[in-house]
Structures are given as structure tokens and as C-alpha cells.
């Protein structure tokens, strides 16, 4: 015979307690109206933040040296994205582990990004129509051995450290860079027209809502980080909690971002994984408070409840 759970008998539970009229629907209605008024006033007076998005085009126009440096680093396979690891590729530069626990590795590659190809060579190959110089620079580069490619790129990236802007072109000291300067100046030109934003997004199919490629490329550059620093959004500034302008941000992330500011998290290469694990444990603890001795007894020990129910206790 199945034992049925007894239903909750409120009459018994409330025995000895005076019952008073309480209009729940009216309370809800008042709450709705009051909240609407508050929200409308805040919206009318303070509005909401909307700093326009950064584009690769804006990047190429306002900081061409940073753009070209980043692009060359991508082509050399040495950028953060190029060496990242799963879910983007088989690199290992950004894999986080905790001892033998490496969920990032176990999950594998699911958002395939090949930085030299996706960010540089593919877009350039779309732009060779009517541009024989670019076409031959590309085939020279493709034909060269990986070692030769790295030699050209390494020298070029080093020279970029003291690059100048001449007639809107990034100019470096003379050296043996092979076809790399041509590739880079064509990519810069493409970026300035907005074409690179488009090519990185659509990647030969018309409809696209996945911004992985343009965002990863943007994120590898100094220009993007500089914009964030101007808005006080970077991590060492407790950025996770912050919003652009003078608006409140995500104050509820205070504990999540706090860990990043203190040892050992603030210097750990696997800080993200550590923080996620710490917050998972704490969230579980929050969930299970009713069952955790000590934590569930604090309300008894620190009697804030005596204020909440003071009328009841006086009776």
C-alpha cells in the first residue's frame, strides 16, 4: 500500500496565531504600479548606456600600426587566439587546468578557428580579383616553407615596433620581409573599407549571427583593450561589475569578481577555472543552507528576526 504524503494543514500550523485580513492581489497591484513609476522615472531621467560597438574598420583607421601588428601576429600563428586551444583549435596557450582536471581539453574543438587562415589568408584571397600584386604575393607566401614564412613574419613584427605612418601606409625600416608587407597593407586597406568586418562575419554564407571570428580578432589587438580601459571595464579594475559611463553595473557579480583581485587567483594562470569552481561550491552551499549546521543556525544566533517579528514576540 503506497503511503501518501499528508497534505499541509495550515489550520494546524497556524494554531494560536491570529489571522488578519491581507489583500494579496491589492498588494501585487500596488507593487506593479509603484515599480512602474520608479522605473519610468529612472528611465526618463537617467536613460541607459549604449557605447557604440568597436569595428575592425574603426580599428584599422584609428590605430593602423596596432592593426597590422595584430594581423601579422595572427598570420604567424602566435596570437592569443592562434595558440588558444579548445574550443577554437589544437593550441595550448590558454588551456586552464587544475591538476589532472582539464575540462577545456576534454571538451575538444567545437568552434573551429584557424587564425592565419581565417583572419588573414582567406579574406585576402577573396580580394585578389583585379589585384595581380596581391595574387602573386599570396602565392609567394603559400609556396614558401613554414620556416621561411616565420622568418619573414618574425622580422616584420619586430620592425613594426618602430613603424611609422606615411601617407596612411604603415612603413617599417627596410628588411627581408618577403611578400608580408604587401599582404599586410592589402589587409589594412580591406579593413578600412569595412570589408574585413563583413568577410570575417559572413565567411561565404549570407546569413550569419555568429560573431566568433571578428570578436576573437578584435580581442587580440591593443586597440580594443584600450577602449575598455577608457571605460574602466578591465579586470584589474573589478571590471566585471562595471558598466560604461556612470551607470550601475552588475553589482550581483561582486563575489565572482572579488576572487580575481586576491591571491592566489590574481596571479594564477588558471584563475578562471579556479574561480568557477569556487563559485560552484559556494552556490551549492547557498542552495543547501537549510541542511548545513552552523550556516542555518546563524539567523538564530544573530537575532535580526527579533526586529522582523517584534510585534509577534510582544504579544
Amino acid at each position: 500500500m503506497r503511503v501518501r504524503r499528508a497534505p499541509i494543514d495550515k489550520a494546524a500550523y497556524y494554531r494560536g496565531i491570529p489571522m488578519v485580513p491581507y489583500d494579496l492581489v491589492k498588494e501585487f497591484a500596488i507593487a506593479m504600479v509603484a515599480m512602474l513609476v520608479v522605473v519610468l522615472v529612472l528611465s526618463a531621467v537617467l536613460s541607459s548606456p549604449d557605447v557604440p560597438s568597436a569595428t575592425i574598420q574603426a580599428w584599422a583607421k584609428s590605430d593602423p600600426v596596432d592593426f597590422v601588428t595584430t594581423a601579422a601576429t595572427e598570420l604567424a600563428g602566435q596570437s592569443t587566439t592562434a595558440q588558444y586551444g579548445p574550443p577554437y583549435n589544437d593550441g595550448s596557450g590558454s588551456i586552464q587546468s587544475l591538476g589532472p582536471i582539464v575540462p577545456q581539453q576534454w571538451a575538444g574543438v567545437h568552434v573551429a578557428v584557424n587564425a592565419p587562415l581565417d583572419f588573414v589568408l582567406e579574406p585576402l584571397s577573396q580580394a585578389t580579383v583585379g589585384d595581380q600584386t596581391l595574387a602573386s604575393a599570396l602565392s609567394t607566401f603559400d609556396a614558401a616553407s613554414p620556416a621561411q614564412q616565420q622568418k619573414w613574419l618574425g622580422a616584420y613584427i619586430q620592425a613594426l615596433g618602430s613603424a611609422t605612418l606615411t601617407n596612411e601606409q604603415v612603413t617599417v625600416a627596410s628588411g627581408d620581409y618577403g611578400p608580408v608587407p604587401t599582404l599586410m597593407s592589402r589587409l589594412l586597406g580591406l579593413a578600412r573599407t569595412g570589408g574585413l568586418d563583413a568577410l570575417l562575419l559572413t565567411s561565404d554564407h549570407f546569413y550569419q549571427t555568429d560573431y566568433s571570428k571578428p570578436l576573437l580578432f578584435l580581442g587580440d589587438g591593443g586597440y580594443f583593450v584600450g577602449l575598455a580601459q577608457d571605460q574602466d571595464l578591465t579586470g584589474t579594475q573589478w571590471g566585471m561589475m562595471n558598466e560604461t559611463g556612470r551607470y550601475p553595473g552588475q553589482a550581483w557579480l561582486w563575489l565572482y569578481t572579488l576572487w580575481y583581485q586576491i591571491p592566489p587567483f590574481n596571479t594564477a594562470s588558471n584563475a578562471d577555472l579556479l574561480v568557477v569552481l569556487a563559485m560552484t561550491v559556494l552556490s551549492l552551499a547557498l542552495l543547501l543552507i537549510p541542511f548545513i549546521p552552523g550556516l542555518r543556525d546563524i539567523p538564530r544566533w544573530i537575532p535580526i528576526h527579533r526586529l522582523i517579528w517584534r510585534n509577534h514576540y510582544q504579544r
Partner: protein
Amino acid sequence: MTEAGAGNPEAAAPPSTGGAGSGDGPEREAGWTGAVRDRLTSRLSIDELLPTRQPSYVGSWVYVFGVVTIAALVWVVVSGVVLALMGSAWWHTSSLGHFFNSIHFWSVQMFFIFMVLHFWGQYWGAGWRDGRAKTWMVGVVIFLFSIVTAFTGYLVQQNFDSQWIAVNAKDAVNSTGLGGFFNVLNFGQMYGLHVMLLPIGVTLLVVIHVLQVRSRGVVRPIGDPYVPDAAQGSASGGPVR
């Protein structure tokens, strides 16, 4: 008639499910439909859902935080519906659109403010007592779900803030191995989660949470516990522990 009439085994109708398994109620319906109906009506009759009286200890402003949180959520959803109706680019080019975005932005701030205040109230009142642990737990899940929902919202703003959040958050998500399945750089995915899947989840959880509160009633003050009366307690089963 008492408030908990449906739980009283002496009530003539609806069919009683009272008793500690000692025997079938007088009119127990056969079949799945009857079982579901009996279970629902024993705990969630219309009197349970919309009582007109509360215990007198519900006489503190701390008790309004929950309903104010729900009020904020309503305006979050309403403004969100308008934003979704007009498309994700609307609010950047229309001042009316921007105004609705502001409503959405401030409702969300209000939602989190009052949800946390409600949390504080429930913690210091130890609201999980007397069989209400599940209510607390659903509440925590709502909190965590809301954080994820807000997170996807920040990601689909289509402005600099969303770009920056995406590029930085990806590392934390990737470190857990979820980066390939929850791609914060993928606007389409985040948008679908934010305007449909997650709000449905939050709303469902809030409904469950409210039903839990209504079916159990408001927890007694600390130090004034429910004491089962031996004569009545066994017949009615008493409150769920």
C-alpha cells in the same frame, strides 16, 4: 471554514487524500487524471492560492520584497517583449526604442535589488524551516538562473559593452569545457537563450516558487514553533516536516 479546508479529512468534498496511509479516502478517483487532480486540489485549492487572511506575524515590510521582485520581473518581461518585437537593432536608432531599453535596464536593476533584499529577509528569518527547504532551494535556483539570463542579456546588447563582456567571459566559460556549447561570441545563440529559453525557465521557476509558498503558508517566527497537537496531529498528518 478554515483556510486549509481541503486538507481536512472531515471535508465532504473534494475527495480527501488525508491520513497517513491508513486507508483510501471516501471518494478516491481511479486513474491518472484523478490522482493528479487530487494531489493538486489538496494543496492548491483556490482558497490556498488566494487567501484573504495571513497570520498576524506577516506584519513587516520585509515581506513585501518578494512581491516587489515579481513586479520588477513583470516589467522586465514586458519591456523585453517590446524590444524583441521591434528587433535587436531598434533601440540603437530610435529614441523610443532607447527609452524601452532604459525601462528594461532599470527593471533589471530593480529585480536584482529586491531579489537580494528578499534573500536577506528569508535568510535572517530562516525561511526554510518547517518543510520549506525546497522553497528556499527553488529560490536559489531562480537567483542563479537570473544571473545567467542577465548575462545573456548583456551579451546581446550589440554595443561595446556586449563585445567586451563576450571577449572576456569566453575564457571563464571555455575553462569549464562549455565554451563549445555555450558560445558567448555567438550572438544568435545568446539571443535565442535570452529572449526565449531562459525567460521561460525563470518564469516557470517563479511560478513554482509562489505555489510552494502558497501551499505551505508563511513560516512561523523563530522561537515560536509549530507544536503538533497529539489528538489532531495524527488525524490530519500535520504540516510537512
